[in-house]
């Protein structure tokens, strides 16, 4: 009986309480502390399906922590995070189901250095989802082509540039066929000339209708690609709005000061 409920969780669970016209991600009063340090102090926002959301703000304002909470890499102390209607802050959460839905790309790429680019992309679908290897390989090759890395399938991460590694990391996340992609300062560690190719890949993903949450310091890119921009400082959302309005008519003095420093 309990097995049945589990196996249907992905299909039946969210559908019962969630439909695509509702927010795909919904945060309510999220609090997160590391020991005595409170990093998030009551964050709430919604993301709709297909929306591209950028989170900007000074370092240490809790941006990275925020998106790590969305796929359960960090747990939260208080509040609620719902992904397709499924509560992330729930001890009985089916982590596998959540992580199939939510992909994340990190600042430091974190590719598996002992595996080739192709193997990096194939590993999770083959080993975790137990999908047939041939099918996965076909998909993985297509994904590597999609991020413009044809011919690099058999290269090890150490043989690739930062920008190339980051695009393999994006392909690796996409191989799980997620509904949502999280990008945690993915261009912060890159050379200026390789930033462009990574941003191009993200822009294409956004254009295809992928729901994306980006933590970024690339203001120009945020302005161009985002549907909505959030500015966080010291664990709270200070101000948010559509990019045109946000970047030109910011009301809060903290936002204005931050923008004057980075623009």
């Amino acid at each position, binding site marked *: 009986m309990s097995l049945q409920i589990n196996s249907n969780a992905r299909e039946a669970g969210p559908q019962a309480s969630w439909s695509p016209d509702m927010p795909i991600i919904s945060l309510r009063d999220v609090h997160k502390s590391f020991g005595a340090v409170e990093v998030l102090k009551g964050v709430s926002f919604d993301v709709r399906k297909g929306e591209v959301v950028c989170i900007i703000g000074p370092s240490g304002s809790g941006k990275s922590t925020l998106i790590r909470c969305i*796929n359960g*890499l960090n747990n939260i102390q208080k509040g609620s995070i719902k992904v397709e209607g499924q509560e992330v802050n729930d001890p009985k959460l089916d*982590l*596998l189901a959540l*992580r*199939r839905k*939510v*992909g*994340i790309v*990190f600042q*430091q790429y*974190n*590719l*598996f*250095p*002992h595996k080739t680019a192709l193997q990096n992309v194939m*590993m*999770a679908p083959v*080993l*975790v*989802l137990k999908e047939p290897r041939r099918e996965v390989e076909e998909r993985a090759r297509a994904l590597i082509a999609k991020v413009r890395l044809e011919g690099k399938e058999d290269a090890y991460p*150490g043989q690739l540039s930062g920008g190339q590694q980051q695009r393999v*990391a994006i392909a*690796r*996340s996409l191989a*799980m066929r997620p509904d949502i992609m999280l990008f945690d300062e993915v261009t912060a560690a890159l050379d200026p000339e390789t930033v462009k190719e990574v941003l191009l890949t993200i822009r294409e993903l956004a254009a295809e209708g992928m729901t994306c949450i980006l933590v970024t310091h690339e203001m120009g890119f945020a302005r161009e690609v985002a549907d909505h921009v959030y500015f966080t400082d010291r664990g709270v959302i200070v101000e948010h709005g559509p990019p045109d309005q946000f970047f030109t008519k910011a009301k809060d003095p903290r936002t204005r000061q931050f923008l004057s420093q980075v623009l």
Partner: protein
Amino acid sequence: MKGEAFRIERRRFAEGGFCSRIHWRQGMWLVLAFFGSLAVAYAQSEPQPASPSAIRTLVLWLPFILKGFGLNLLMSFIAMAVATLFGVGLGLLQISRSRLLRMPAWLVTHLFRNSPWLVILFVIMFLMPFEIRLPGGGTIIIPDWVKATFAFSLPVMANISEIVRGAINSIPKGQWDSAESLAFSRGQTLRWIILPQCIRRAIPPWMNWYALLALATPMASILGVREAVGNAQAAMEAAGARPEFLIPFYLFLLCLFFAYIYPIALLTRKLERKYVFAN
């Protein structure tokens, strides 16, 4: 006395400087010293025509000593296999998320890592029964060399446990993050992502400990195990215990162990260098 000699060796080697401090030229000096001592011994043993020279005695007893050396090798192989098996297990327990598993593993590791090998050897020798009575009435006698092998495996096991723990901890946290975000469980992450990366890092120190283990096996002679050093001593006794035997016999033993361990040390150094570049 021999125990002390080995403690000194351990301290020197344990720093990881084992490979970097030796050079093939040092091996040459050793070989030269050996042949030099043969010449001296030969010169000294001239006046007694009735008794054979030290060299001839050594050659005569060579098969006996080499047979003993075979036991040194066997003990080192078995002890290393046991140590690796249990050491890896202990190392994994040390990083367990359960305190109940972690604490005993930590205790065992540090107990055997910080005791003199000779003391462990004595403890095992006197704690292990020399025979096991089977329920059916038969008995299995445990030979001394088996006990000694088990004793040697314990400190090496503890050190391998630390190697494994250290190697796992040296893998960047981001590897765990990305594996977790791709829905790998903790066990799958260890199996497919963390441990394969650890093997490369762990092999040079693992080989280092093998070398130390093989060099420690003559300690078993104190307890009457018939390995190379014990047999050489027995041979000297049997041939009349003449003082001029000492230098050629012991130098021969030095050369024997050197010839076996030194290539291992060279290979370890090569692997270490290779992995430094690979990382």
